[in-house]
């Protein structure tokens, strides 16, 4: 075999088109006669709709149609529940899903009331101001702690206490563990995650071809196949009549896996009804309300410890803000619940959460998907325990690690994918050792920090650990075909939003098929190219679709060898595939190009043997028995300006084990981007709602995404523990960078300012200069 592609830092296949501005994004779709949509959205968080008068809007020149919920008729229906609750005993789940256009009442600012279709977006927005809406305000449910009060207003009239869900999971016996404990620590933690804010907002173009009897939808979705299936069902079409294309998508990070957004229901329907192409592109203001986000949880946690710092048990109760509707089930809070266990042995665990409806935008997974909240709780508990027990922060973690010989390790809880929470493999000590070495833990604490403090500088160090469930089922598939020109095509059903699938999937196939990565064209996110699949989420694309690509490539390789053996009248073992051709080992000149072989596999005339399949092609599927568990450690040295509380990250280290690595360049990019989002979450980004449910900072001038000045250079180290759950040994890596940054910031800032000895703990995220000032009482000199 020639040079191995798998594992090499190969430049990406997709980059040239993106760099030239030639790649197709949804808003680049231009169709003749296209109409443009604008949505009228509620400006109140909670209100009864008294009336909506669209007559003046309909009369405006350039306006083709205006619709409200009434106009949708029987098509109007609440959206589907995407993820049903897992089979946990005693679980309560009150399903209330979003509607295409509000009817009767509105439940969050930005909920759509009406849609205008006009000849341009400019005209459509003009017409929004022609619509007369009468809303009777209701008290808004904003605060998590009072949402469940008996006297509180109800987001959904028939749901008492605004309880969206109530879930309790137990391992072992916490009460007994607590009675044995030498030390007990109880704290309240608040963790607020924010808006994913991809630079491309959402968008949809729908085109109904009446003569072809075919609907085509371009959508910024992470799940084109489910969108196709759902649209077909809703519109009364066969699935083959609907083609969904997720072209190049400008970042996803979770909220683009959500469906059906109201706009996804309304725009295709309008295109079909009006028999005209329709485009809707979300603007940045809309994005803050109309796209799902993550938000707050409040945890009351208690940890029981033995004298040496060993964890005897943890009890945690938390409340989770699910927003006005809960179409994504319990994925986010269950991830929080299980993430508290971290990489540690926690034999006794009692966890209860209540998800509450609030009059705020819908909460669905955003990169990390609730894991941040849980990791914050356990990592803060470890820090506080280390301080109180006078242990090194690193030592207490190591002391509690699941030992390397204990895998697979069963945590005896139910995971978000309905499977038991079992970690497949890992070597947590090796990751920790590497992180300690790279950050220079002992030298910093023993030598550098005292010197810096003597100079009056406030510099601190932090180190946190985490595990991340990745690569969950159900399955993905891939179709691989050798073309007559000798090039290879791969089609898969997942969508892609920058993860480098056009290259990493090609790398997986290239070695099997003996072709260059650049000669393999990957198609993702087009339901006419590949029919089946679930989507890109939960750090699963490389694991699940990657292994499907591997299976399909192996099958095609077998077909190549079989046909070539017939051609050369030799044994398959005597053949090798390399450089785009099959040759007979040791016989110079005996070679056939893959393209020529592909032509032979599809004869135009003559007879074939019964059972012969045409072409050098195979479609294979891969479904893992359960998710893989990646793990890692982040460490940081940070300087805090004692006057302004501005931060300067002096060193940032990530050590990560995501199993076998397909492309280290792409992996580094995933980690860098995740950390950048984690930094935003930890110190810069917060959705600020007032007590009427109004978002006060709905612009990128006020909701602060980190820039090149806030994100430091990162040093990345790898350890490799191959997953036993898939043939390639891959674990997912998409979310790892983002997950543990919050507790790292809290710990390192505490260390820099020497807060714990003063009795000040940073038990909330996000922090900010203002918040640090408030929490620490005064600027420090």
């Amino acid at each position: 075999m020639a040079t191995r592609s798998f594992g090499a830092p190969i430049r990406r296949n997709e980059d040239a088109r993106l760099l030239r501005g030639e790649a197709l994004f949804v808003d680049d779709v231009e169709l003749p006669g296209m109409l443009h949509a604008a949505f009228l959205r509620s400006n109140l968080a909670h209100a009864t709709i008294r009336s909506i008068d669209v007559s003046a809007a309909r009369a405006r020149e350039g306006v083709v149609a205006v619709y409200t919920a009434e106009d949708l008729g029987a098509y109007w229906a609440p959206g589907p529940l995407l993820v049903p609750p897992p089979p946990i005993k005693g679980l309560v789940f009150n399903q209330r899903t979003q509607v295409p256009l509000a009817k009767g009442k509105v439940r969050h600012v930005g909920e759509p009331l009406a849609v205008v279709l006009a000849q341009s977006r400019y005209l459509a927005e003009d017409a929004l101001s022609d619509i007369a809406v009468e809303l009777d305000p209701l008290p808004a449910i904003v605060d998590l702690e009072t949402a469940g009060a008996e006297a509180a207003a109800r987001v959904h009239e028939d749901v008492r206490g605004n309880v969206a869900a109530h879930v309790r999971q137990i391992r072992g016996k916490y009460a007994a563990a607590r009675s044995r404990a030498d030390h007990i620590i109880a704290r309240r933690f608040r963790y607020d995650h924010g808006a994913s804010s991809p630079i491309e907002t959402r968008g949809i173009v729908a085109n109904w071809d009446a003569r072809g009897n075919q609907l085509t939808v371009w959508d910024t979705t992470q799940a084109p196949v489910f969108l196709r299936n759902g649209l077909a069902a809703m519109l009364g079409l066969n699935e083959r009549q609907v083609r969904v294309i997720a072209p190049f998508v400008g970042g996803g990070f979770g909220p683009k896996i959500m469906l059906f957004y109201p706009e996804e229901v309304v725009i295709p329907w309008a295109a079909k009804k009006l028999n005209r192409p329709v485009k809707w592109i979300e603007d940045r203001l809309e994005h803050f309300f109309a796209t799902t986000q993550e938000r707050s949880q409040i945890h009351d946690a208690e940890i029981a410890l033995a004298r040496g710092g060993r964890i005897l048990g943890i009890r945690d109760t938390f409340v989770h803000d699910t927003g006005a509707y809960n179409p994504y089930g319990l994925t986010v809070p269950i991830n929080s619940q299980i993430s508290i266990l971290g990489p540690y042995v926690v034999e006794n665990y009692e966890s209860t959460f209540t998800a509450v409806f609030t009059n705020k935008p819908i909460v669905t997974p955003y990169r990390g998907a609730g894991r941040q909240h849980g990791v914050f709780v356990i990592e803060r508990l470890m820090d506080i325990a280390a301080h109180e027990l006078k242990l090194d922060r690193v030592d207490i973690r190591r002391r509690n690690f699941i030992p390397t010989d204990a895998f697979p390790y069963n945590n005896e809880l139910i995971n978000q994918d309905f499977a038991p929470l079992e970690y497949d493999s890992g070597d947590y000590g090796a990751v920790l050792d590497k992180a300690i070495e790279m950050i220079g833990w002992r030298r910093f604490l023993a030598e550098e920090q005292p010197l810096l403090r003597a100079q009056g500088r406030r510099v601190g160090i932090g180190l946190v650990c985490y595990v991340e469930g990745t690569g969950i089922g159900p399955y993905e598939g891939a179709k691989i075909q050798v073309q007559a020109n000798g090039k290879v095509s791969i089609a898969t059903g997942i969508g892609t939003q920058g993860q480098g699938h056009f290259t990493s999937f090609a790398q997986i196939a290239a070695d099997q098929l003996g072709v260059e990565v650049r000669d393999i064209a990957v198609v993702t996110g087009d339901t006419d190219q590949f029919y089946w699949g679930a989507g890109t989420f939960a750090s699963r694309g490389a694991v699940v679709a990657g292994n499907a690509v591997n299976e399909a490539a192996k099958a095609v390789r077998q077909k190549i060898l079989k046909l070539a053996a017939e051609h050369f009248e030799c044994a398959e073992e005597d053949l090798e595939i390399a450089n785009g051709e099959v040759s007979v080992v040791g016989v110079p000149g005996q070679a056939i190009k893959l393209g020529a072989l592909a032509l032979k596999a599809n004869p135009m005339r003559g007879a074939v043997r019964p059972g012969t399949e045409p072409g050098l092609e195979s479609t294979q599927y891969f479904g893992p028995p359960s998710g893989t568990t990646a793990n890692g450690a982040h460490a940081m040295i940070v300087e805090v300006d004692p006057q302004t509380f501005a931060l300067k990250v002096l060193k940032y280290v990530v050590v990560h084990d995501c199993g076998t690595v397909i492309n280290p360049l792409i992996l580094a990019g995933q980690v860098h981007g995740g950390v950048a989002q984690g930094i935003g979450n930890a110190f810069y980004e917060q959705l600020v709602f007032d007590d009427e449910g109004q978002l006060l900072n709905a612009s990128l001038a006020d909701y602060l995404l980190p820039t090149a000045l806030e994100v430091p250079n990162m040093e990345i180290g790898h350890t490799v523990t191959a997953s036993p759950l898939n043939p390639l040994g891959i674990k997912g890596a998409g979310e790892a960078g983002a997950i543990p940054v919050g507790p790292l910031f809290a710990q390192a800032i505490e260390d820099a300012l020497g807060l714990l000895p003063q009795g000040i703990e940073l038990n909330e995220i996000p922090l900010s200069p203002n918040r640090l000032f408030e929490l620490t009482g005064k600027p420090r000199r």
Partner: protein
Amino acid sequence: MSTDTHDITVTVNGTRYQRQVDARMLLSDFLRHDLLLAGTHVGCEHGVCGACTVIFDGAAVRSCLMFAAQADGHAITTVEGLAADGERLHPLQEAMRDCHGLQCGYCTPGVLMTMKAFLDETPRPDEAQIREALSGNLCRCTGYQHIVEAVALAAERLRS
């Protein structure tokens, strides 16, 4: 509302265009949807994210903060005009590819145009200067590190 229109002549990537535009037509919309130069992307429509950056008479500007009518008589370069010929990528584009400086690629055209104008003025930038110049372009995928490396590499290649 406004039905004022203006007749404008704009040179984009060396081609002269004569068009009639609504007074309120944004330059970004004009480039994307009228001239069909959709490589210029729109991320925030309020001048923060930098995705829509084009080079306007040699300076990097945000096309979402200008009206098309204001471009009358001016010369604009968009990402489609960055590579001198159809075959080879501009050294900045090449370096972005070599360093994995892009993921979803949505902010990339704006990054390229901002950095093109920056390197024209600052051919020997250090890392701090690159980061400062890049700080007006938001990227949500890369964490910037590979972009910074790419710009430094491009500067080096452009000098030699």
